[in-house]
């Protein structure tokens, strides 16, 4: 009731979701195409990965609040405080990436960028199959790029494992399902506001006019919040619509270049 429209403002915007779940599909896809020896498809998927990584970095500067690096890359003090609080009693769910999770994003995204970058210069044994930019480097450098491409993949697996372990940790120990997205989180926040309102209503019933006035104030404040959220949502829509066409044009150009 308080902010029905706020529920429509998603915690993670669509580009963030699409990019993330594409990574989930692409990493095993790239591994499988390599194992199957289908290097042609491996290279094509690699281009898709490169495009998505570049887009995600760009989106980290212009995307919605939870997508921006500036909103979730925190300093060592915040990270340390967060880690200390991690094993204490359950606190408020964090909206967006928490101080530690933010660094997980930075590490995973960096590893993907390094990995896809190495792939551009890597060649297989005896130079039979080679990445699209190998002609800019020597035979030995292309061999080294391949060795690192293997090494970084294994490092990536370690961090993906850590990422999954963290989700499991939050689900089991912290009882906070990070995957079942923001709906629950929004519900938690709504429930918190509803409880505040109920408390106000209850105190208004107990008390006299003074409390009623406070209740009215609260209602008015809620209306202001509702209004602001609506405004922000409208602004987000307005800002994302023209940029949607820019981004789809960029995506089409990217597909045209790599295919």
């Amino acid at each position, binding site marked *: 009731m308080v902010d029905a429209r706020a529920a429509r403002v998603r915690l993670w915007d669509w580009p963030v979701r699409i990019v993330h779940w594409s990574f989930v599909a692409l990493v095993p896809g790239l591994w499988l195409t390599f194992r199957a020896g289908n290097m042609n498809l491996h290279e094509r998927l690699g281009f898709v990965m490169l495009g998505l990584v570049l887009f995600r970095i760009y989106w980290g500067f212009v995307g919605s609040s939870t997508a921006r690096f500036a909103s979730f890359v925190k300093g060592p003090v915040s990270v340390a405080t967060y880690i200390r609080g991690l094993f204490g009693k359950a606190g408020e769910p964090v909206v967006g990436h928490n101080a530690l999770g933010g660094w997980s994003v930075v590490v995973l995204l960096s590893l993907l960028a390094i990995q896809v970058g190495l792939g551009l210069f890597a060649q297989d044994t005896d130079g039979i199959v080679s990445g699209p930019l190998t002609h800019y480097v020597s035979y030995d450098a*292309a061999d080294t790029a391949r060795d690192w491409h293997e090494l970084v993949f294994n490092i990536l697996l370690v961090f993906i494992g850590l990422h999954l372990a963290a989700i499991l940790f939050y689900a089991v120990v912290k009882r906070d399902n990070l995957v079942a997205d923001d709906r629950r989180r929004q519900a938690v926040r709504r429930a918190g506001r509803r409880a505040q309102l109920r408390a106000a209503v209850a105190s208004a019933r107990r008390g006299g006019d003074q409390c009623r006035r406070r209740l009215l104030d609260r209602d008015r404040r809620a209306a202001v919040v509702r209004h602001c959220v609506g405004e922000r949502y409208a602004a987000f829509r307005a800002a994302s619509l023209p940029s949607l066409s820019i981004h789809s044009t960029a995506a089409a150009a990217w597909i045209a270049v790599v295919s």
Partner: protein
Amino acid sequence: MVRMGKLGLGLSLAALAATGVMAATVGQVIDARQKGYKEIGKSMKAIADELKNSAPSTAVINANAKVIANLAPKVAGWFPKGTGPQAGVKTHAKAEIWQKPADFKKDQADLVVAARQLVTVSATGNLDATKAAVGGLGKTCKACHDSFRAKDD
């Protein structure tokens, strides 16, 4: 008797050359083999690099194809017995090379044919046919690697 002895020595040397190499030289054989393959690989890369240019030169491809075509028949001599994985020297050569000599020989012959084919085709200057021949050569490399070369580094 003397002549018989010399003949015997000659025979045993020939047998040694045919069946294996002395332990001290195993490392040298493997080293020379790897250098040989690296030569082939470098020529292969030079060909692939050329194909990545906007206007690839078939002459450059032809020159590198000749290097491969010259080395290809030598591959048969790069795998004396005793230079496999049991040699104690780091090598990707699989034991199958000596277990399936007929298959290995066929792969070598395919390489020789494909390399010569590329030399012939690239000499005509036809880029599309040259690309196809490069693909054919790459396939023979891969076929042999898949069967006879250990994957992990």
